[in-house]
């Protein structure tokens, strides 16, 4: 094992990225992997990415449908159009802007080097970022990058996920150090999840890539993978052993979804919201605010003055916000992708844990779950003043199958997170719910 597995970009890279962004337009090709970082792209003229339908699903849906066969053999080529008409007899090519999904992560040309070489890093224009409070996933270290196609930009939103243009690619690499007491040494990436915004009617799609044992390549694993008996040593020196689940593509929807007025489900990113991006990141030598960085690269439009941009605190830094704000932030990033009025579990449970919900009943105070099942620690979602009779805490704390929350994404308890919610509930004025 080597370390670090993903090196930070140097200042030169940042400057280059800015230069590329400044001079490039859109992409006239029907489809593309991404614009290579060193390409002048002289011939590019911007094309609108709207008004597309082209009937059947784009080539992104083609890979791997034949069992036992590598679907994406053409991955990595620029001419994504070849992939389109090979099946289904559809004579229409994929909609403009469609990203061809390669079978190997390297096929995106979003990274250089490998974790094996210790020089795995995002290319210029594939912008690393961090969240003020990240979603917990079995203590994994996460490295995130955002690639927005040349000539395009995200649109700022104060509350919602940034409106990212067609062709945007978000990556998240999940890794574990062998020993969390030395978190930069012997870091082993397990998977890189890729979210791609394709033209309508497809929208966001998700693809998991699993790293090989040699850490030289990550390969598309639509069906996910279970790392049985995976282990690491935690900050206290205790060995944690568990089954690490790389979600199947279909399981990505479990968290990444929103229900529209017609009751259809759509995929949506979770963390790329202004309030979670509103923090510094060191791109060159100086820390710089991530949102301002995106704006200065021309990748974010509509960013208001800094004072007007909301910020979710670091839920575990008591210096940043009071207990309630921190607890609500933790619930917002970890739970509200399901527990909100536009997601199926929220609709079913009527438990809304998003940051905007203010009425106590929807937040679970003295609220009976419709369908908790047995043995979930109590009768009410939250019993103010009593965390250990509150189902909300129980579900976060337990590691019992069928009872824990979130439903996928963790096998281990987040000790600090469960403690934060316990502290929050215990600090509420005690109330009998009966």
């Amino acid at each position, binding site marked *: 094992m080597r370390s670090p597995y993903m090196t930070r970009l140097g200042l030169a890279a940042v400057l280059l990225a800015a230069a590329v962004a400044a001079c490039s337009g859109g992409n006239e090709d029907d489809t593309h992997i991404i614009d290579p970082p060193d390409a002048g792209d002289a011939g590019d003229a911007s094309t609108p990415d709207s008004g597309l339908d082209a009937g059947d699903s784009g080539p992104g849906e083609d890979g791997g449908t034949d069992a036992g066969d590598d679907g994406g053999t053409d991955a990595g080529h620029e001419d994504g159009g070849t992939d389109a008409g090979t099946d289904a007899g559809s004579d229409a090519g994929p909609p403009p802007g469609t990203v061809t999904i390669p079978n190997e992560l390297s096929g995106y040309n979003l990274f250089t080097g490998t974790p094996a070489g210790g020089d795995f890093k995002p290319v210029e224009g594939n912008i690393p970022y961090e969240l003020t409070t990240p979603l917990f996933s079995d203590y994994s270290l996460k490295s995130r990058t955002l690639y927005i196609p040349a000539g395009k930009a995200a649109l700022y939103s104060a509350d919602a996920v940034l409106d990212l243009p067609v062709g945007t690619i978000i990556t998240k690499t999940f890794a574990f150090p062998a020993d969390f007491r030395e978190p930069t040494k012997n870091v082993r990436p397990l998977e890189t999840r890729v979210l791609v915004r394709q033209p309508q009617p497809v929208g966001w799609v998700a693809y998991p890539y699993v790293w090989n044992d040699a850490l030289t390549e990550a390969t598309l694993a639509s069906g996910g993978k279970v790392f049985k008996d995976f282990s690491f040593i935690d900050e206290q020196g205790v060995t944690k052993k568990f089954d690490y689940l790389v979600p199947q593509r279909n399981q990505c*929807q479990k968290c990444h979804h929103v229900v529209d007025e017609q009751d259809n489900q759509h995929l949506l990113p979770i963390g790329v919201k202004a309030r979670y991006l509103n923090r510094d990141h060191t791109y060159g030598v100086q820390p710089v605010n991530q949102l301002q960085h995106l704006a200065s690269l021309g990748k974010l439009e509509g960013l208001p003055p800094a004072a007007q941009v909301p910020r979710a605190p670091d839920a575990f830094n008591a210096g940043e916000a009071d207990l309630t704000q921190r607890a609500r932030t933790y619930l917002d990033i970890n739970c509200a992708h399901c527990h909100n009025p536009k997601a199926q579990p929220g609709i079913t449970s009527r438990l809304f844990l998003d940051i905007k919900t203010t009425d106590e009943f929807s937040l679970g105070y003295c609220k009976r779950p419709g369908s908790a099942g047995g043995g979930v620690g109590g009768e009410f979602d939250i019993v103010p003043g009593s965390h250990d009779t509150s189902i909300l805490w129980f579900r976060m704390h337990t590691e019992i199958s069928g009872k824990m929350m979130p439903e996928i994404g963790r096998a281990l308890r987040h000790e600090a997170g469960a403690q934060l919610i316990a502290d929050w509930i215990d600090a509420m004025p005690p109330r009998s719910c009966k």
Partner: protein
Amino acid sequence: MNRLPLSRVTRVALVSLMSLLAIPACSDDDADGPYADPHPSKGPGEETPDAGPPDSGTPDSGTPDSGTPDAGPTVWPQEFTCEGKETHALTFNPGQEQQLQNAVNDLKPCTTITLGAGTFRFDNAVTIRQDGITFQGAGRGAQGEGTGGASSTVLDFTNAAANTNGLDVVGKLFTLRDVALWGAQKDGLRVENSSNVLIQRIRTEWAQPNLPTNGKYGIYPVKSRYVIVEDCEAYNASDAGIYVGQTRYAIVRRNIAKQNVAGIEIENTKFAFVEGNTAIDNTTGLVVFDLPGNPIQGTDVLVTKNTITGNNRKNFASDSGSSSTVSQVPAGTGTFILASRRVEFVGNTWGNNNTVDIAVLSGLAIEPNPVLWSAGFFNFSTSDVSIHHNTFLGGSGGNVDSGETNPASRPLGYLISNLYAYGKAAAGVDRVEHVMWDGIDPAPRNENVANGMHLCFSNNVVPATTKASVVDLDLEAVQKKLTAATPDIVGAWAETRRYNQGAAPFNCSGFSPALKLP
């Protein structure tokens, strides 16, 4: 709305009444013969919106609150079709689990996936999120068969990652048939938000009986439309073997449910036809109910030609600490109907259910706060229940909760057991009648109206030894007297009233228009 009488009972009584009975919700599949056309061409009439007037609490039970299927044949709408579209076929054999997993995550619409005989061992759920999918094996095998044979396909999830279901589906025009789902961590088959679903000749099972750690539901279509479950088997679920929840239009027929806590459940479902099933050796056999907080108001449920006998299995559901679980149903409950309306039982057979053949209960017995029933327009009340032309074999009602009453975990059983112990000594009533009505609906109770909820019990075959067939238990009054500082068992018994079959006021004759099978 009227203040409900239950809110005035003592705290002790209220607490215990609240938890009398509790049922789980979710936390979330032809027509003429077993081998006929995979999707029905006929079905009940056009769907009507749920939003009836919020007429909560008023004792107007006689008016149906929803549309009813018209007599004439109508067609179930098909929300997706593969006609005229390209179809695809994939085949997998044991050993190709990972290939199958990759394939189901990249499915094209209108794909048929065929699994060869044998055992497929999965470390994760098999998920399907596509329309027009048929998933089929070589056969479901026999009860107890955890390994596929030459003509059976077993999907073994025993070593799957925690917190996953077995087969997990969201899609339109979905067909599943001829497989066994073995040892799922959570639900064996979960189908959610789907339509035109056919679940045919499958088996869901866990290896060991009576384990609270077994998965919750065997076959679980929920929040769906136009669902058929037929010729299936479900064993050893720690909650329900077959659970149709929050669904509009469902046919459940010719299935076998054994050794589950609950055999077959129809929950918050509109237009359900439950025909020819066998529910034996569960804690409770075949039940119909609504839960609070759900926007679908269950109505129009026809239960016919089912066998619901010997459901006396000890309740093995996990029972620590939640108000809301099937864990509180006394063993030996053949059927309960709760917060239900327009439910017809005809041509069924009950017998040898230790606690009672049929309990008719108000939703207020499990959740006394009417506000929590607001999502379903205050659908707590039970009304229009017609039980006619059935056969009661006898042997029921004489050993409440199979003799293992527990006041903390199953208070209803405890209460009935004590009440009837007195009744036996004082009045020679040695078993609970075939039908036990809790006397709550319509709430508040009006003693001058003997059967305001319109419960009909007529033209059933009962054993010659049957004295009375129906008991109005007046649960609220009984509870109050039994839980008073000085319990009044004599007074409590005096609150109960017994009726012979054919006697007023339960000698009514169903309702109109009648329910019809599609």
